[in-house]
């Protein structure tokens, strides 16, 4: 990790923390103007975050997608970018940032703690499928994370419909629809990630599916979201049930991203 990258990384962290602090202050005091500052800070944080990624890419000589730190750096970049794009086109409730920023912050911190040494890109990573696989994995994560934010607020609103601080949030039905739509987007990206991974695995290991723990957890998460979509369509599981399923989904997804090695070794490197 170069000195420039260290400085940019910590500046990014401080800006995100600042954006979260201002946002939560605005949420509690219901001061609209502070929201704009929080949003501006988030865009600034993303710009510096981009600079961290570019610096890492130049210093390492390869796209930053080979170890936990690099993958988490890119993953949080995608998550914040997705949120800000959808906020810009007025397609997401701005307060969902209160869930997205802490998740991104935790992921970044976990990546940093797992080691920041630049490692040369091993032969296994030298495949055009790497970029497709990683980008779509993180796009899926970003969409699912935003859906989780909507689910959290939905549950809060259902628990306390008259809560003063929650009055600015959309109606529960709207949060429910928003969550569903982001899950659909995550599901599509998740499918691309799985398909690209299977094709890459055939080239790399000789077999497109080996049931190694990481790919199994990724399939479990995919099946779980398929379950969500079917339960919603055919059994009418919406609102509270759908929100709880969304929360469980992100836990399964988090295991597939970061928790697989808790249960044993895997030949499949993940974030």
């Amino acid at each position, binding site marked *: 990790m170069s000195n420039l990258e260290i400085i940019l990384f910590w500046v990014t962290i401080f800006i995100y923390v600042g954006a979260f602090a201002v946002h939560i202050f605005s949420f509690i005091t219901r001061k609209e103007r502070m929201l704009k500052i929080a949003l501006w800070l988030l865009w600034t944080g993303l710009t510096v975050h981009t600079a961290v990624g570019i610096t890492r890419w130049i210093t390492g000589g390869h796209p930053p997608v080979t170890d936990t730190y690099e993958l988490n750096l890119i993953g949080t970049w995608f998550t914040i970018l997705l949120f800000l794009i959808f906020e810009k086109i007025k397609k997401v409730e701005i307060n969902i940032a209160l869930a997205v920023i802490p998740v991104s912050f935790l992921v970044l911190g976990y990546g940093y703690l797992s080691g920041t040494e630049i490692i040369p890109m091993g032969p*296994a990573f030298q495949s055009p499928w790497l970029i497709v696989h990683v980008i779509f994995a993180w796009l899926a994560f970003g969409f699912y994370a935003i859906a989780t934010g909507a689910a959290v607020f939905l549950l809060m609103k259902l628990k306390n419909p008259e809560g003063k601080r929650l009055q600015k949030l959309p109606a529960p039905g*709207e949060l429910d629809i928003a969550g569903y739509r982001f899950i659909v987007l995550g599901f599509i990206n998740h499918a691309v990630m799985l398909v690209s991974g299977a094709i890459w695995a055939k080239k790399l290991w000789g077999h497109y599916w080996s049931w190694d723990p990481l790919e199994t957890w990724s399939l479990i998460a995919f*099946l779980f979201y398929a379950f969500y979509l079917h339960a919603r369509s*055919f059994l009418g599981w919406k609102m509270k049930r759908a929100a709880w399923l969304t929360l469980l989904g992100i836990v399964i997804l988090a295991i597939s991203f970061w928790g697989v090695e808790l249960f044993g070794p895997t030949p499949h490197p993940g974030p």
Partner: protein
Amino acid sequence: MKTFLNSLLKVLSSSKLALTLVLVVILISAAGAMLPQQGMYTAHEIAQWQEAHPLVTSLLRPLGLFRAFHSILFLVTVSLLAVNTLTCTLLRMARVVRDGGMAVLFKGPAALRNTGFIVLHLSLILLFAGGALSVGLTMDGLTVLTEGQVFKEEHNNYIRLVEGPLRREYHRGFMLRLAKVRVKYEKGYAVEMAADVETRESSGPVEKAEIKINEPFTYRGLDFTLNDVGYSPRVSIRDNKSGQLLVDSFVALKTFRDGPKRTYRDFLPLPVFLQKKQWVVITIIPAMDREENQPLLQVNIEDENGQITAKGSVPMNGNIHVGEYDFAFTALRRSASLRVMDDPGYEIAAIALWLTLIGILSRYIPDIKGWFKASGGPPF
């Protein structure tokens, strides 16, 4: 009879059954991902785990969950899910056609969604079929070769060979010679690995090829992928009392990596040692800078409990006396481990995977377009 068939069809195509089966697949997969699985762990490791977790073992072993993805429970659930998907899709197709004719699938506002739904679910059936072919007919072999060594494609020449239960054993019998292994390191990490090989039939010209990680070589329907590279020292072992030559061959060592550090080691499971309940562990040390210029061979003789009873190290072209044996280290070559696969289900599965993607996109893109176009409504 007709009523029974109708009821059966209704049950088999029900969405509740689909959801239940998906949940069961999720639970079995979670067990398969958390429990040590046969094939991934040694029998000894599994036994150790089971000893440490007696309650879980007593509950889950009868269900076959230590071989979860080959268990009867898993196979029956997935088969039922395939039947459910097929009946559900066919009934939906029939309903759509009955209500609006075949044109509904290709025309009108819901055409893409309907087609997407059907393509998605039929592609899942195709995926089940591809997966079943892979499980039933795959040949998955492993061989480790030293530079200059020739491998004849026959059953006994594989270190490990797993074949699907429906596969009729068939080997091509051609020769594959490992000509050269090339590795490039940066900061102690491998950044390039390649194996130059030559294939030859019993008569006929030699075909040369390069196998790299991510770039398999396909010959007569078999895919050769490069798993890893390592070292093979040539070791001669004599009984120092009788002078009898026990071993004189290249010994391909496994590569162990810990960050930028590497060691290469393995043991010689020769009958003469096993009779005496001894293991001879051969290691090349140190991993980093001596291996090419000043390779050093370390020999440990261990008893059945893994205790070292004698040890020593010897540079190349040297001899050493360890325990009851004389060891000579006379040459060092590179080795490569190659996975050899024949998977008749892959093409079908690959087509199914692409169709699944097309189906998902067709099913949801009309909805997504609508969400983006909508203004003033609920948030996205």
